[in-house]
């Protein structure tokens, strides 16, 4: 039996990168400060990689996001599997041309002659008062782009497994890491997690919560509260945002008849709209209440602590919405 390690998300992603680089010499890592000379990333996610695998394969770059993603795309077309780090999700706006017009589209536009097997790691999330340009969730931009896959783990085990799958995937994968849950430990089985497959994080009969990244943690906290009130939440962790697990989510909501889609991104035009729409189209007549969406306020992420707290969906809001659905 394989040993099950207790690791936090930083350690789990680091282990996945180590294992992937050891398994395949074509796997490369690049980005600002990823090398050990620069401390292995601002959060230490890539710590030790350049020492173990050399600075030819693990390259710190200048602050040049377009060149980072361009270099990753070019190297991938040339036969490599680069894992590029864009330090923060807001910085993804800088190389959007490389991501959206090139990484996502080259396979289709070339009629399948070329493909772009890259992973773009990026971190984000409210909770540290980092304000309007350091903590946004912009997953809808990427999920709205044909040709990109988007994953967002909430546990160390899924972080390991999704990273291994993302690196081995033959298409570009955006890998979203949440800052506040980086240090939460959990068991890591070192198994691949398939892209496109959700996980029932908690079984329950009454209301399905569809969430990803840190909102899974909030949903599980809400479930704990509601259990004392006799309301059983079923928490579905999407894990992959695009392509999302329609069958898995539909099965859960068909069972409970009630659904709340929760994300940390602003509610307007967020991925919750797509999921809620599909649930309504497919389960019309079976639903016991309208599908609800929870997301951040429609404003830039604020700095001041009370504003930041109010901006972000949390367990109490999820619990209140579930209660309302039960009495609808």
């Amino acid at each position, binding site marked *: 039996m394989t040993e099950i390690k207790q690791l936090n998300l930083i350690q789990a992603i680091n282990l996945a990168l180590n294992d992937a680089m050891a398994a395949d010499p074509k796997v490369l890592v690049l980005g600002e400060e990823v090398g050990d000379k620069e401390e292995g990333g601002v959060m230490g996610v890539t710590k030790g990689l350049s020492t173990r695998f050399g600075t030819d394969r693990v390259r710190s770059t200048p602050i040049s996001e377009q*060149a980072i993603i361009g*270099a990753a795309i*070019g*190297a991938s077309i040339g036969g490599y599997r680069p894992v590029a780090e864009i330090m923060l999700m807001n910085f993804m706006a800088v190389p959007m041309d490389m991501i959206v017009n090139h990484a996502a589209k080259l*396979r*289709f536009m*070339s009629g399948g002659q070329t493909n772009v097997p890259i992973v773009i790691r990026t971190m984000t999330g409210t909770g540290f008062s980092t304000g309007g340009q350091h903590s946004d969730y912009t997953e809808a931009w990427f999920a709205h782009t044909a040709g990109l896959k988007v994953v967002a783990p909430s546990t160390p085990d899924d972080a390991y497994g999704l990273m291994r799958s993302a690196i081995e995937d033959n298409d570009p994968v955006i890998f979203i890491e949440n800052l506040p849950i980086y240090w939460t430990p959990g068991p890591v089985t070192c198994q691949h997690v398939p892209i496109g497959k959700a996980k029932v994080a908690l079984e329950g009969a009454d209301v399905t919560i569809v969430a990803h990244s840190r909102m899974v943690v909030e949903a599980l906290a809400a479930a704990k509260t509601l259990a004392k009130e006799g309301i059983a939440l079923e928490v579905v962790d999407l894990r992959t945002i695009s392509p999302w697990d329609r069958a898995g989510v539909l099965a859960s909501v068909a069972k409970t008849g009630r659904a709340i889609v929760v994300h940390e991104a602003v509610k307007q035009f967020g991925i919750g709209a797509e999921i809620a729409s599909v649930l309504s189209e497919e389960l019309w007549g079976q639903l016991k209440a309208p599908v609800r969406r929870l997301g951040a306020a429609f404003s830039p992420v604020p700095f001041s602590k009370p504003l930041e707290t109010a901006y972000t969906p949390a367990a109490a809001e999820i619990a209140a919405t579930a209660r309302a659905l039960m009495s609808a």
Partner: protein
Amino acid sequence: MSNYPRPDAATLLEIYKKATFIKQNDERVIKQMMAGKLVTPYYSPRGQEIIPSALSVSLDDDDYVCTIYRGVHDMLAKGFPLGEFWAELAGKATGSCKGKGGPMHLTHPAKGMMVTTGIVGSSMPIATGLGWAAKLDGKGRVSVANFGDGAANIGAFHEALNLAALWKLPVIFICQNNRYAEHTSFADSTLLTHLSARAAAYGMPGVTVDGNDPDAMYGAAKLAIERARAGEGPTLIEALTFRFNGHLIGDAAPYIPKAELEAAKALDPLPILRARLIAEGISTEAALAAIEAAIEAEIDAAVAASLAAPFPDVTELKRDVFAEEIA
């Protein structure tokens, strides 16, 4: 430039063959469009033929090339198959990209044509990545980034050239300065006289050459390629040329002063090279006429095949988005 390697007679003839192939093909594309037999956005490379022709005689099939929407000349010079080119322009299933890319995204990895982009400035970061792959492979392969004078003012130019120089990558940056960025003149885009001056800012060699002069272009390209193959890093070549047609076919280019255009056309490099080949005894009128006729016949066949070919099935919308077909 006196130290430049010069093309021998056979190479000069090869450059002419490539250049006249590009010119005749360009004229046929425009003819088909004007006759209503081809509907496509088309960015004519007429006037810029010598640059890729004099470059590609020093490249191997597995050397990488990235180019832009005005890149038909770059592709044909590198050996892009003509049948697949015409079928792609016609949006047919037999096109190089199955009709999914069109003229702005022509791709043919077997000849090293890795990426054609419709975004000004985006060839440079990707060619830099291909240069990184080539360096890691260690087989002496080089990567060429083609772009125009307009692209030299985009931020990606700075990021890509800086990274390529820093990492000493085998990349040749070829700025085809055709004097107009879409409708805007070179003088209205930068205060510089020569864009090659920017190379110094990245610590790489930069040179400005007459891109319409096969000797100068061949020499500058060969030196840069040899330098890259030897692991000495990238070079920026500014190849001076002129765009004889509008930005797009259909654009009459009123923003180009008539005298400027006429002066450039009077120096059309194709007839000049043709006359030189005969004057220097490298070829004869009869031999060149035969070459031109053979090219015309090859184009005839490619055009006919493209017209007869089927359009892609609509199920293609579900393929090549991802490796897996969309359900």
